[in-house]
């Protein structure tokens, strides 16, 4: 039974429309391919996949189970969503409840033991030795364990075992871990025993119906024979943007921590129908994984490039993960980023920590040339250059909220279109910010844009300008950069997002909306994608986002500073423009 209903909310926009188990991984796979392939490679051909959150993509991906050799007459693969029973029905409340609701399904196969897996872990494991040990020891339950670094132990279910691997204590995410043996979320249960405890657990109203939190501790308390089974190879829970990025980078290490090249442990997946990848004479590729259907014209280093990706001439990609069918234009620089499926990045874009550093320097007054006048005039207000909102004709909905979690002050940038009356600019910024930010933040925006110089003096690092459309000047109209998911500097470009030419995005940003001028050019990669990715309506920012719209520029940034800085920014733009 594979638990695949989780949202994986810490993966941000990657799991907005799909469940975590179908997030791409390792060049051509989805995360769930590892659990499914482990099953079939361990001779297990009857598998139930429990789905709940955004199941369409997952159901379609699994289909008949044929890619994993699981389209069988007897057994095979079963997708198990929550369902109506009698006159009522309910969602899966927890991992244990999901199995509880499918007791009848499991019973129909009359199994001796049941293997419970998580659909969102990356590891290659033969379950047979574990099941054999489970049977040999006549265990009631066997839990696969891995040794984790002590400092990380408090993130896992930690157990203590005796010399025979009999579990003596178990604690879910303990503050003071008694050992560093962590549960991998892989359990073998004696089915009769598990059924009994699932029913017991269901009767307890306080229970959160979770294996780690409830079932295992309850079994242990009742003196059941729980054994640990040590696993000594690579295992990773790719729950965050950082760990997803890191796990992909791990595939480039030598020796390989996760050896997918062994025939008997092959990872199966639903294969896209694509030709071999093409490497042009202008391309340079080193220390990369590249998949079929790609066309590489630029330089790629230490990156994992998924199926059907195009990387334009003169682009430099490093330390990045480029998801299927993303199109990257010419002359782009991308470092330490995850680029989502079908994202389109225009020519001359930069996504890297150095882009941010450069922008920070130029931040005071770093408005596009067309807007320089507007900011200079508005200079009387403290909310100068760092609070510049781009307001194209008719659309006053441009916000760029910025800053890492550390940089508490976010910057809202409003740039009036060329030729627009300069005076209303700050007001437009405030309104725009208000639309985006919703409640209290809107007031903050209003007050600070109205000229309160309090923000810089209130302490905290100065706000940062992190992106603008340098090619088309005032053409940004609908962008939000959220940084709270990516504290470690990994940028995330969400799936299906289109970014116009010459946009510069600092490290650690999450771009989840398209940055394209109406009818704006995407350069060499211009495809239908731009048309498809009509900007969705503005959602309220997450509570954790440091929305201080309209916060003032860095200390001392005034009208004069911004007027001076503007030409400098102009020069920079010229350098960037392809």
């Amino acid at each position, binding site marked *: 039974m594979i638990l695949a209903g989780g949202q994986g909310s810490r993966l941000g926009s990657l799991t907005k429309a799909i469940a975590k188990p179908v997030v791409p991984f*390792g*060049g*051509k796979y989805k995360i769930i391919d590892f659990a499914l392939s482990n099953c079939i490679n361990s001779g297990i051909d009857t598998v139930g996949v429990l789905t709940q959150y955004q199941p369409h993509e997952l159901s379609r991906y699994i289909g008949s189970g*044929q*890619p994993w050799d699981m389209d069988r007459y007897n057994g095979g693969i079963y997708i198990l969503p929550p369902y109506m029973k009698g006159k009522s029905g309910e969602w899966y409340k927890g991992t244990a409840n999901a199995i509880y609701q499918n007791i009848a399904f499991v019973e129909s196969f009359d199994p001796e033991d049941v293997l419970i897996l998580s659909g969102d872990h990356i590891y290659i494991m033969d379950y047979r030795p574990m099941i054999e040990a489970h049977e040999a020891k006549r265990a009631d339950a066997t839990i696969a364990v891995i040794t984790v670094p002590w400092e990380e132990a408090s993130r896992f279910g930690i157990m203590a075992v005796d010399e025979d691997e009999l579990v003596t204590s178990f604690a879910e995410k303990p503050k003071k871990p008694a050992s560093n043996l962590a549960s991998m979320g892989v359990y073998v249960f004696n089915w009769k025993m598990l059924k009994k405890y699932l029913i017991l657990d269901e009767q307890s109203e306080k229970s959160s119906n979770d294996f780690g939190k409830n079932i295992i501790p309850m079994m242990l308390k009742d003196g059941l024979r729980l054994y640990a089974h040590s696993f000594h190879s690579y295992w990773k829970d790719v729950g965050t943007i950082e760990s997803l990025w890191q796990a992909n980078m791990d595939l480039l290490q030598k020796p390989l921590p996760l050896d*997918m*090249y062994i025939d008997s442990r*092959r*990872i*199966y*997946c639903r*294969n896209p*129908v*694509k*030709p*071999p*990848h*093409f*490497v*042009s*004479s*202008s*391309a*340079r*590729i*080193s*220390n*990369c*994984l*590249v*998949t*079929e259907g790609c066309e590489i014209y630029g330089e790629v280093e230490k990156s*994992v*490039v998924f199926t059907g990706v195009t990387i334009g001439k003169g682009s430099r990609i490093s330390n990045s993960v480029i998801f299927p069918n993303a199109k990257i234009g010419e002359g782009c620089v991308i470092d330490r980023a995850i680029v989502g499926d079908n994202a389109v990045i225009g020519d001359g874009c930069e996504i890297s920590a150095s882009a941010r550093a450069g922008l920070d320097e130029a931040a005071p007054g770093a408005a596009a040339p067309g807007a320089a006048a507007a900011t200079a005039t508005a200079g009387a207000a403290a909310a100068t250059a760092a609070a510049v909102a781009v307001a194209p004709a008719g659309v006053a909905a441009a916000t760029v909220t910025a800053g890492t979690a550390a940089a508490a002050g976010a910057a809202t940038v409003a740039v009036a279109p060329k030729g627009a009356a300069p005076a209303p600019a700050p007001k437009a910024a405030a309104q725009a910010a208000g639309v985006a930010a919703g409640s209290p933040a809107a007031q903050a925006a209003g007050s600070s844009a109205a000229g309160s110089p309090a923000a810089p003096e209130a302490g905290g690092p100065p706000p940062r300008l992190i992106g603008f459309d340098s090619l088309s000047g005032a053409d940004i109209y609908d962008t939000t950069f959220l940084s709270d998911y990516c504290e470690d500097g990994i940028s995330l470009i969400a799936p299906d997002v289109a970014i116009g030419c010459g946009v510069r995005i600092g490290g650690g940003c999450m771009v989840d909306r398209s940055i394209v001028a109406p009818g704006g050019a995407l350069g060499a990669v211009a495809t239908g994608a731009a048309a498809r990715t009509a900007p969705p309506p503005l959602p309220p920012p997450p509570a954790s986002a440091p929305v201080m719209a309209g916060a003032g520029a860095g200390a001392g940034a005034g009208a004069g500073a911004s007027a001076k800085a503007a030409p400098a920014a102009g020069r920079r733009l010229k350098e960037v423009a392809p």
Partner: protein
Amino acid sequence: MKDTMGIILTKDTNNKLYELSAQRAVAAVPFGGRYRIIDFILSSMVNSDISNVGVVTHENYQSLMDHLGAGKEWDLDRKLCGLFIFPPNVRKESVDRSKGTLEELYNIMHYFRRSKEKYVVISESGVICNMQLDDAMEFHLSKEADVTVLYNAVDARGFKELSSLTSLSVDRNGQIVSMEINPRFPKSNKVSMNIYITKKALLETLIDESISSGLDEIESDLLRKNLGSLRIFAYGYRGYVARIDTVRSYFRTSMELLNRNVMHELFSGENPIYTKVKDEVPTMYGDRASVSNSLIADGCVIEGNVQNSILFRGVQISKNVNVANSIILQNSEVHENSVLENVILDKDVIVRVGKRLTGQADYPVLIGKGGVI
């Protein structure tokens, strides 16, 4: 094209692919990094909505059967229709394998009778193209033709490379007035693609008649004899076409895939070329890998230099290796310090440390399957 069935003939007695076709039919010769030659015409049929395809095998068909399987990858694993593979000598009395194409078709008469489609597309298997057959069918119907022969225009180099061809002379209306088989000085640059469209009922009659009057081949016998009595038209296909029946044409056509336009036309997203899935891992580029102007399939491990080449699935290129203008088939390995230029390595070849293999663009060195050097 819903009312059309497809027949793919894999007879290849005149081919000059030498070791490439020693253990496999030409239809099953690997091509383009991950495909086999038959994938192109078979996918073209499938992409034209033909869901009933018979593949007539001739000799050496084990590799072809293994490749096609139940037709799953071409979406031909169907309850109704789907893929039918006919081994040679399906009937007890037909034991003479030297018999012509018409005899092969005669042998599968039961399949024609059982199929419900009104039209048939018959194709030989050595053609590389990615075509929608709908336009040709429209042409066929608009001309009220009995048979339509597909052709493309071939240049002088093309004529030189082909080991056998049929050149078509066509009147202003598109009707074929004469057909020349392997002419020394061809009168026309229109060369048959060996793809024919006709009504199934007419085909059955023609095959019956032909067999009773001792005819062997479709073009040289059946069509030529009936030029006066049937409306036989020629449809010119303007897309990319290559024919593979010599080592030289195999090599040159493979290299043409590195041309962006050819690559995009053959492998465009909307009409993919389907092939058997291998579940290889993504290709791993080492720190010192240097690859340019090449097509690389999945599952390769590249540590050395590769230039103007095609690597099939699972190829290993070790450190300090230089591969240029070469085609390396599935699971072959080139060990350290070796140099390959204008070389074709068949499957499972091992080039050991420090070897040097050099061919010419016109005469590539060809190493047979499983060779160890």
